[in-house]
């Protein structure tokens, strides 16, 4: 117990680091994922190709390799940013591929008669998208987006191993200070459980409120 009470500040710092990383990377992933999903359903061939390549390459890249390439590779091109920012970019881009697929399959669940009906009522593209297609797609994408964001929170631990301030990284100084290593990890585990279970709870509430009755 005294591992936690003695080093409460260190733990809180790590916890907040993980939360920060998760929130920023989630926002980036949602925006990029939406963009890529719109590319993948676009009527223009080259957009579709670009979206497909983006998704297929990123989904099949080990995240460690991506971190390795971005954190150690981009500085070779003279792109020098804080590690925290690099980590957000890496996690965001990686997760955007999964978000994109979730959104795309959500859009595909909307029957095409809905869009045809909207158009025959004279709705513009924006109206069709905003008032007919997206609200229905939103209902079916809540669970997959939730589990993608949970995966993102868990993946942020990899950033910790690349010396970004983060919850998992706190084990190192504590280990050097000679604290009981098992208890150190127990409290780290508790921290991650809090984060993943609260994201899960949030999305369960969303699902209950907006989800499709199945």
């Amino acid at each position: 117990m005294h591992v936690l009470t003695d080093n409460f500040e260190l733990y809180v710092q790590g916890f907040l680091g993980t939360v920060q990383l998760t929130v920023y990377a989630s926002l980036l992933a949602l925006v990029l994922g939406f963009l890529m999903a719109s590319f993948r359903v676009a009527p223009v061939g080259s957009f579709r190709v670009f979206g497909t390549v983006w998704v297929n390459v990123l989904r099949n890249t080990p995240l460690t390799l991506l971190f390795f390439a971005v954190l150690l590779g981009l500085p070779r091109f003279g792109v020098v940013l804080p590690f925290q920012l690099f980590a957000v970019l890496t996690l965001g881009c990686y997760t955007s591929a999964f978000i994109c697929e979730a959104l795309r399959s959500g859009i595909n669940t909307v029957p095409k008669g809905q869009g045809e009906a909207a158009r025959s009522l004279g709705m513009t593209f924006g109206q069709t998208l905003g008032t007919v297609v997206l609200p229905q797609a939103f209902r079916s994408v809540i669970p997959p987006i939730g589990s993608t964001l949970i995966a993102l929170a868990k993946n942020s631990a990899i950033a910790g191993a690349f010396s970004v301030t983060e919850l998992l990284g706190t084990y190192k100084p504590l280990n050097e200070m000679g604290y009981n290593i098992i208890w150190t990890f127990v409290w780290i585990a508790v921290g991650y459980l809090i984060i993943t279970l609260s994201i899960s709870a949030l999305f369960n509430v969303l699902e209950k409120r907006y989800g499709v009755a199945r």
Partner: protein
Amino acid sequence: MTAHALHGDQESTALYDVPGPNALRRHFLYGIVSTVVILGLLAWILYLLFDTHQFTAAKWRPFVYEGIQELLLKGLGNTLRAFVYASVLSMVLGAVLATGRLSAHRPVRWAATLCVEFFRAMPVLVMIFFIFVALKVQPLPALVAGLTLYNGSVLAEVFRTGINSVERGQREAAYALGMRKTQVMTFVLAPQAVRAMLPAIISQLVVALKDTSLGFLITYEEFLHAGKLIASNLDYDLPFIPVVMVISPIYIGMCMLLSWFATWVARRERRSPKTKAVEVAPAEPGTVLPGR
């Protein structure tokens, strides 16, 4: 009907109508402009690579040395070894945990549920570090154990979903024939569930293959580790970018191959008459929210 026949594969979607002549012309224009932009972007990256001297002979020379090639191959072999161990063990653990969750005895069910939920909510890297640092285990067993705990828990959920998705009539018919609980499971439910879940299982193995690269972080001598050794060699002028350019296509290629295999299996199983009483899962890793 005629519109479809005229335009071949052109069909309206929920978002777009079948394009008319004006829209087609506009799309063609957009297509050309965006292709030019994308090609320009690629050219700019290529220019940057040349500009920062990534294609000099000195940086690419190490790859013709036999010792370096052997180092890379050994790393690749270690990656595949960890993958094979982890995938076999996680399937075993998944089967055990799924049996536990479907058990008729409440304490067993609770224990299995707790186990599955805990390991699914925990980052796999935390488990690997815990086993490696706190329990002082060698890198390979630590990596395999971490991957097994995580993927085993996810696979347990996949198996369980599969068993539950078999039509109720199958189970009822088997019981009506006088089969015992275990017989119903092993002869009727499990074979159909595995068939239905095969795409999801293979997709989860892709996750396991990707996660073997975490071994890099606990100094397991896998593929990425071999790359790092070459990249940090001063004799070869720190060939970091060339190393990434050699390693990533191999890694991504392996994962893509396995992903495509999952998609192929999914298509095949959907056509198979043996999956009539169960819905074949799509080829993607399990996406059930924890706590359900």
